[in-house]
Structure formats: C-alpha cells, structure tokens
C-alpha cells in the first residue's frame, strides 16, 4: 500500500446521500479479476448524464470527493475503492461512511475523512462557487484545510500509523505468528471443519 501523508487537490462536490456501492461501481464490473481498470465504471449510470458533476470540464483532474452522508453503503465490494482510486481520487470526505467501505478504503490507502455536515456543506459551497478551490487533507496534522475552512478530523491512531507508513496488514499480523499458533492449539475439537466428510 502507498503511504498517505498529506494531499492537496481540487474537489468534486457530490450532493447525494446514501451513495451505495452499486452506484459507485455497478455489479457487472465486478466480473473483472484484477484490481485496476475500474475507472470507467465509477458512477457509471450517473455519468450517462452530461450534467453529472463528474462530467463537468471544470472537475477534470479533481482528486478529493466531497459526498453526502452514508457514503459507501451496501455491498462489501472493494472494487468501489479501486474504482475511486483508479479514477484518481485520493481522499473522500463525508459526514458518515458505511463501515465496510471505510475499512476497505483504509486498507488501500484511500483516505476517508469524517467531517460534520456543516463543514461538508461549507466545502460544497466553496467548491461549487470556485471549482478551482483546493482542499488539503493532512493526515499528519489530522486536519482538512481549504479557503476559510480548517477542520480537525479523527482517525484511530493505529489506522493512521498504518496509512502514514503504507504498512501491509498481513506482514504486521504474521509477526504475531506465535500468538496465532497458541490460539489454534487450544481450539475445542467440536469447532466445525470444512474438510469433506
């Protein structure tokens, strides 16, 4: 995973709540067996409308998505995160994220930032009035900054440390091999096994 320290970029204001993962990446894209090439599937249905915010010329090259509450609800598909990243997004800001989506994003180095709705409203207004306005997402300072706006955000220390260092979860876990083996040794014999009977 790539490390995330701080990022500055233009934004896409997405004034929609409950953006589910079927909207972020429709199911037929899930047939791919790779982690890349999902950018054209991002918000595929909405992008058919030329007026959809992502299609506006002034939004090209934007890297921060500012979305309504309950972003990423629905299925566990990590493809939703890959699609956002493949498209070029580095961070998503919302007042509330679905749990699985948030977990997936942090595992892939896509920073999901929770800010209260009034701050999200302020960011929408700013970036709608001035499409060139930049937003800085600073993970070291745990702060989002834009013209006239400074907002602190929370992220648990462990997740932050992994992101800042771009650490791979599996290697970290495997350092605890002895703990895993010890646990396995004392599992009761009645626990289910999948081996064919």
């Amino acid at each position: 995973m790539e490390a995330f320290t701080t990022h500055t970029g233009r934004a896409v204001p997405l004034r929609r709540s409950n953006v589910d993962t079927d909207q972020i990446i429709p199911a037929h894209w899930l047939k791919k067996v790779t982690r890349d090439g999902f950018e054209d599937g991002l918000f595929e249905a909405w992008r058919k409308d030329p007026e959809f915010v992502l299609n506006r010329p002034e939004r090209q090259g934007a890297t921060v998505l500012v979305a309504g509450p309950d972003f990423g609800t629905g299925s566990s598909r990590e493809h939703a995160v890959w699609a956002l990243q493949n498209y070029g997004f580095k961070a998503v800001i919302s007042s509330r994220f679905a749990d699985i989506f948030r977990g997936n994003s942090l595992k892939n180095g896509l920073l999901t930032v929770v800010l209260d709705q009034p701050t999200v409203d302020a960011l929408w207004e700013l970036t709608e009035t001035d499409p060139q306005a930049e937003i800085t997402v600073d993970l070291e300072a745990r702060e989002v900054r834009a013209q006239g706006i400074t907002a602190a955000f929370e992220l648990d220390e462990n997740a932050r440390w992994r992101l800042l260092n771009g650490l791979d979860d599996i290697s970290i876990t495997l350092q605890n091999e002895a703990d895993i083996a010890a646990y396995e040794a004392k599992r009761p014999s009645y626990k289910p096994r999948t081996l064919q009977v």
Partner: protein
Amino acid sequence: MGRTLAEKVWDDHVVRRAEGEPDLLFIDLHLLHEVTSPQAFDGLRKSGRQVRRLDLTIATEDHNTPTLDIDKPIADPVSRVQLETLRKNCADFGVRLHPLGDVEQGVVHVVGPQLGLTQPGTTVVCGDSHTSTHGAFGALAFGIGTSQVEHVLATQTLPMARPKTMAITVDGELPEDVTAKDLILAIIARIGTGGGQGYVLEYRGPAIEKLSMEARMTICNMSIEAGARAGMIAPDETTFAYLEGRAHAPEGEDWDAAVAYWKTLRSDEDAVFDAEVVIDASELAPFVTWGTNPGQGAPLSASVPDPASYEDASERLAAENALKYMGLTAGQPLRDIKVDTVFVGSCTNGRIEDLRSAAGILDGRKVADGVRMLVVPGSVRVALQAVEEGLDKVFKEAGAEWRHAGCSMCLGMNPDQLAPGERSASTSNRNFEGRQGKGGRTHLVSPQVAAATAVLGHLASPADLSEAPATAGV
C-alpha cells in the same frame, strides 16, 4: 458486569490484544465465492503465501452462475473467466469448492448453514456483506473486503476494532400474515440505513424466539441494510434442532460439549448495550419498499410518501430522487403499483420455507397475464427438497419459471435482469438503482407478498386474494 452475546463470542476469539491496537480475532469459518476472491488469491501468489487453514475454508459459485442451461458453457465470456479463475485458484491452493452443477452448490450464505458449518459461537467471514446471515445461529459473522479476504487466507485472523452493541427487542407476537421479512424491513425503516453503523445488532424478545431458523436468517441477513457490522440471535433449542445431524455438525461427545458451550451464549441479564430499540411485533403489517434504499419502505396499506413531508433536507432530496427513479408519484397507494416481474430467491428469501410459503399461495392460482415470475432456489439442496415436495410443479403450473440455484436476479450479474424501466417485486435485499439490471425498479417484499403480487399483477398481500384458489375443495 455482564456481557452481551456479541462480546462473549468476540472475547472467545481474541488471539492478541494490545493497547492502542485493534484486537486480532481468530476466524473459524471463511466462505469464498468467485467475485471477491480473485484479487486476494493474486495477492497470495505475489507474496508467496499459502492458505493457512484449508480446513476452515470453503468456496462456492453463485453470483455469476446462470440459472438456465447450466450444462452448457457459460455464454458471458467475462463471467466464465471469473468462474474459471475461482476453479483454478481453488485447485492451485487446495480449497474445497462446490462448482456449478455440484449438489452442494448455491448462494454462499445458504450453503454454509445447510452444511452445518455455521455454528453458534463461531466467527464467520466472507467477502460479501450479507455474511450477517450466519448471525442467526449466534455466530459473529461479518462481510469483509478483498484485502481482508487475503488477510484471512494468509493468517486465519483479522485485526478488528471492537464494535458497539445494540439490542433490538421485538416484543409481542407477529400477526399471522406478517413475516420475518416484513419485520426486518420495518426495523430498517425505523432505524434508517445508517442506524446500525458501528454496531452488532442483537435481535431478541418473544417474537424472535418463536421464529424458525430460516426466518432468523432472513432477519440477520438484512442487518447490513441498516448499516450494521453484523446481526445476531442467541442460539436456543430451535438452533440446536436445526443443526443436529447436519454434515458438519459435531457428533457424540463433541455434540454434547458443543451444546453445553452454546447454551452459555446469551446476553447476561445485567449486560449493557450501547443502544436499545424496542419494537412491538403486534403492530406490524406486510411491508414493502417504495424507494431506492431498503430504509425507504412502508406498510403495504400506505401510500407513496410526499418528499415534502421529510424534515431532514438530505432525506427529502433522497426521497425526491427515489420517486423520480422509481417512476412513482406522492400519494399513490402502494397497492396500485403494477409490476412486470416477480423474483423469489436470494440469500434473504431463497430457502425452503420461503419457497413453501410462496407455493402455498400460488397453489391453484395463476400468475397474472404479462407478469414474469422467476423462482430461484437458494441452493441445489433447497431445489431438491422443493422438488421432493412438489413445489416446482406448483410454480410451473401457476406459470412461474423454475430455475437453477444461484444469486440470479438479486443483483443481475448473470443474464437474469430487469430491462430499463421494468418493475419488480423481489424477495431480495437491495432496491438500489440498477441493482437488478440497468434502469430496473425494485420493490422489496416477502415471499408471501411476492406470490400474491404475481397473481394480481400489482403489489398485494395474500389477504387481497379474496377468491379461493381454483382447486380449493377439489
């Protein structure tokens, strides 16, 4: 202080706990399917890792599989590649797989319980959000992303932050025509699609204790639709009776030891939940959705709500968008909504009881002209059982299509899809825009409402079928 059911199961699986770190949890059962696993196996290959516990891992094919002509090569080349990739991955790494055509094939969340692999007090994960289904057995079961699938394959553990717990107590008794599906739709409408976020829900109370395992699975299945991490129901005699004798259930002394442990899996009297919701079952009625998220639902006797009636601005906007997409107008009675398609199936309502209740209503009746009805059993075993009971005949005689097991129109990754603008009454779990096919419109319903709707051609409950079926008294 006492502990909740979720806390007990959690504590029993902590491999390592350290200050400032998420707990490292041991995973008892890892279910795989073709959609969310290929990139995980790729990751293993790249880092030269193996599957740590093949004996705790099992795979099936469900999302892409066709429900017609299953003996012919799969027409869609992309779907075919994904299934072939799973087969190759399982063969390379030694994972037990039930492919299309196998007697144990089916939707992953139907297969686990019916094999007896899903057991009380276990941790179950799958790269699929409806893994919450397995919580019906008192298992702690959650959907995970592909990175976590790889993590579990490599280590049989997951680092996880301890979730909060919410009790959903359902008092009273469900009225006769009200099902588990109506109950869970009403719960989601009440707490909202984000209401469960960060929580493990525990459903309890007299109305829950009365439910069969199938009905409990329907409830836990849709916990994710309330945003919850997982849903659970304490195991009891109903659970033990369901498990006894299944292929992977413990036997002999192991059975006794297991049951003794399972009986400890209830929230203590003095356990404290982080949140509590109380529902009166006796007030509920058949429930359907009118919008594009599962929280946008109402009793069948109600009308399409007026977006202007919502105080919250984002809810109002969501309702406006939903009505536009669904082609509905505020104030329209829900019963007047005509459908083109009825889908009975999915991991929410594709089990034998669901098929029995739909067939019970269709028996001696006909699917309305111009309505297409698809009945897709959740697994091959469910299909075989249904055939043994003659349910397939009932469906066919009514004019419904009897299909092969799989996810099918629940998400339309295979050819079973709605055409743009088509409207369905569906026993599945998601009414998102385009979920059942581009431009398709979905109303979530129970199997009973699905069957009555198929007969009348508009959203309806069995009570609306005033005339006796043609064969009555014969």
